[in-house]
């Protein structure tokens, strides 16, 4: 896995990213999905993941699960459309995997993608990703400065 460090966040080069902080690893038509390092650092300890059922259909940009960190319930947004073919059962025993290894053992689900070719264009990589992460950090810093 090629490591890409953007302002202290690990965002591997070969993955595709949705602006709601999910990532997609493409292998043929099968897409593995998880949450980014940016998300897990911001969220803190993940305490529960409410996953969809295998066999469910999802659309790109649709909320397909919920993730609780402390007392906040956040959204898992599907980066691509297709059918959920597998969910990570190891998360039942240890949701901390998302914090410890967000791009490895902390993967969340796998999708058999239905429209990959056109949908990948809607996801971020390379310079667009760098600009997104930098903008997120800048926005957060501006709000902090305003509050002082």
């Amino acid at each position, binding site marked *: 896995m090629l490591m890409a460090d953007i302002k202290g966040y690990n965002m591997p080069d070969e993955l595709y990213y949705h602006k709601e902080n999910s990532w997609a690893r493409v292998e043929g038509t099968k897409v593995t999905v998880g949450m980014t390092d940016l998300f897990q650092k*911001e*969220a*803190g*300890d993940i*305490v*529960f993941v*409410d996953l969809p059922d295998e066999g469910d259909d999802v659309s790109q940009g649709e909320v397909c699960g*919920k993730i*609780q*960190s*402390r*007392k*906040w*319930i*956040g*959204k898992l947004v599907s980066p691509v459309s297709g059918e959920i073919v597998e969910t990570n059962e190891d998360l*039942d*025993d*240890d*949701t*901390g995997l998302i*914090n410890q290894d967000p791009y490895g053992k902390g993967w969340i689900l796998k999708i058999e993608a239905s429209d990959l070719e056109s949908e990948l264009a809607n996801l971020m990589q390379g310079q667009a990703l760098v600009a997104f992460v930098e903008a*997120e950090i800048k*926005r*957060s810093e501006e*709000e*902090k400065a*305003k*509050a002082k």
Partner: protein
Amino acid sequence: MGEQWRLFRHEGVSVPTAEGLALDDTLPWAVVNQSSPPILHLYNFVPSAIVGKYQDIEAALRLDRCRARGIEYNRRSTGGGTVIMGPTVVALGLGINVDYPGLKKGIGGVFESLASVLISSMETLGVNAGFRPKNDIEVGGRKLAGLSAASEEGRALLFHTSLLVDFDVDLMTDIMNAPVIKLQDKGYNCFSQRMTTINELAGRAVPMSEVMDAIQASFENEFKISFRPDRPNEKELEALEGFIKNRYTKTEWIFSNRHPRTRMGVGQLKTPGGLLEVYLSLSGSSIENLMITGDFFSTTEYINLLENTLKWTSAHKESIIANLEAVWKEGAIHGVSMDALVDAILKAKEGQVRL
């Protein structure tokens, strides 16, 4: 004054859980679907116990005692643990866009922004409260309010809190299935050392309306807005009815099994400082709640800090150690080392039983 926010305020009437929670869910719905400005909902529930979205209600509550005492129970759509509500607890729901100007960004930022509104409202009442990261408002280490939230449709956010004006500790110990119940007669002390109320801190019986006024004024000051007293429009009432019908009166919602396994355990250890006891509630692989007690010497504030540092964090040994190291002060618990505390927590974890 800048934008006008909407205010749904119910006074002098206790709201059933289904109605109150459904109206709260309507707030972010209206922000997204009706392009509504932010909406603040201030009210109080009927005597009730409300669990977090992903809590096991049967493990959290003694439902037989709730039924016998006529205490309603329900499940909210935001995170966190059980809250006991009633005529002397101000319930607050807020629907707002996460990008709203002045609202700090990110999960921690949003909690901090809204906590600061509540803290300044407490100042008006003569209560000097502070924010205990990441989710609580406290005074001298004792909890006055807990905050919880959920990202809803689009960029909308639902924020929940409850402010204790007065509180019935006996009711809480009777209906909650927390590890502290195992402490039996120690129960009262344990809760009263960890929680406080506006009445206790202000030294008088503060009317609910005064607390609601203070909260309103504080929102106006912090966000430079004004409030327009309002009620749900026709479309919002339809959404509200939907939430009542499909969530808050539905067994599948209230008794949802979409939650981690809940387990409890007790760890005891003899230390040079005395007996150390840890009561632990685990939710999946996370610590939902813990109580550190025994006959050692320390301050309530420091023990509460340790407990809160570990709540809603991973129960793995490495994580427990890392989190404790960040706040550990050598000698703050006389005769008890950090290693001993970690051992007691791990003993409680080893001895856990399913509820």
